[in-house]
C-alpha cells in the first residue's frame, strides 16, 4: 500500500479524521511527528490536517509552521511531493511560505461552522473537478487575503483553486483554496474529510481527496 504522511503538531485536532479518510480511500496513513525530521521520499503525499495546532495562539498556524517536520515537508515539496493542507493546515502552509497569502479573522469576527458550496477554478487535473461541491467549513480565521499585485499573479498562474459560491467569511475574491506555482501544494479552508459519507451530509469531500491521491 502507498504511504501517506499526516503531520501531527501539539494541539492538532483533525489528525485522526484525515487518518480515517486516508484509510477509507485505501491508502496507508503514517504520522509525521512535529519534532522530527523526515526523509519523505517514500511517501505518496502528505496531509497537513486542520484543527488548532498550538491552540491557534499568536497567529493560526504560526507556531506549527516553524516546526522540524515542516522543514522536511517544505524541502520535499520543492522536489515535487504533493502536499494538501486543510483549514489550520492551509494556515500553516501560508505561514511556512509554501502557499501565497494569509488567512485573517473572519469578517464577522466569529467562528463559523456551516456548509458551503465550492467551485473549482483551476485547470490543473490533480485539483480540478466538474460540478460544485458541498463541504463544511469550521473556522474563525479563514478570510483569505493577498496584496493586489500578488493576486494578479495568482490568477495568471492558475493558482486559484477554489471559490465559495456564497462567501461565508469575507475572503478576498471569494477564495477558499489556493495552489503553489508548481501545483503540487494546495490548501483550502473547508474540510473534505468531514464530507466522506452520506450520513455526514455529503460525500463530496471524498472526491477531492480521491483526486488528490490518485
Amino acid at each position, binding site marked *: 500500500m502507498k504511504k501517506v504522511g499526516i503531520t501531527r503538531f501539539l494541539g492538532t485536532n483533525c489528525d485522526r479524521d484525515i487518518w480515517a479518510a486516508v484509510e477509507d480511500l485505501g491508502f496507508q496513513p503514517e504520522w509525521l511527528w512535529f519534532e522530527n525530521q523526515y526523509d519523505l521520499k517514500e511517501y505518496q503525499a502528505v496531509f497537513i490536517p486542520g484543527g488548532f495546532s498550538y491552540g491557534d495562539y499568536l497567529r493560526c498556524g504560526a507556531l506549527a509552521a516553524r516546526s522540524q517536520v515542516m522543514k522536511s515537508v517544505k524541502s520535499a515539496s520543492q522536489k515535487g511531493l504533493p502536499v494538501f493542507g486543510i483549514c489550520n493546515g492551509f494556515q500553516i502552509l501560508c505561514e511556512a511560505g509554501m502557499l501565497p*497569502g494569509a488567512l485573517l479573522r473572519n469578517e464577522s469576527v466569529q467562528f463559523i461552522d456551516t456548509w458551503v458550496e465550492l467551485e473549482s477554478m483551476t485547470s490543473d487535473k490533480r485539483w480540478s473537478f466538474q460540478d460544485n461541491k458541498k463541504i463544511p467549513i469550521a473556522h474563525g480565521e479563514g478570510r483569505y487575503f493577498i496584496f493586489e499585485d500578488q493576486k494578479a499573479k495568482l490568477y495568471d498562474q492558475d493558482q486559484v483553486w477554489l471559490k465559495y459560491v456564497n462567501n461565508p467569511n469575507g475572503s478576498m475574491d471569494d477564495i477558499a483554496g489556493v495552489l503553489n506555482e508548481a501545483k503540487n501544494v494546495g490548501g483550502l479552508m473547508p474540510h473534505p474529510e468531514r464530507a466522506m459519507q452520506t450520513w455526514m451530509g455529503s460525500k463530496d469531500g471524498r472526491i477531492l481527496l480521491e483526486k488528490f491521491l490518485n
Partner: protein
Amino acid sequence: MLKFGVQVLPKPEVLDSQGRAVETLLKKEGFNLNSCRVGKYIELEVEGDSSVAGLAEAMSSIKKMSEYVLYNPLIEKIEIIKL
C-alpha cells in the same frame, strides 16, 4: 534582566475585522472616536544588563524572535519598545 514590549498591528491596507467591530460598537455608543485598530501586545523578559552593549544584544535578540514568529511581515507591522 531586561524587559521589552512588542506592539503588532495589521498593516493599513489589510482590513482589520476586529478593529472594525470594536470601532462600530464604540461609535454606536457615542464615544469620541475616529478609528481603531486591534493588534497584539507581547511583553518579553530577556537576560541582559543595561549597558550599551547589553541593550544592543538584547534588542537584536528581540528582533530575531519577532522575525522568527511574533509577527507576519506579510500582513503586520511591529514596533519594539524598551520598557
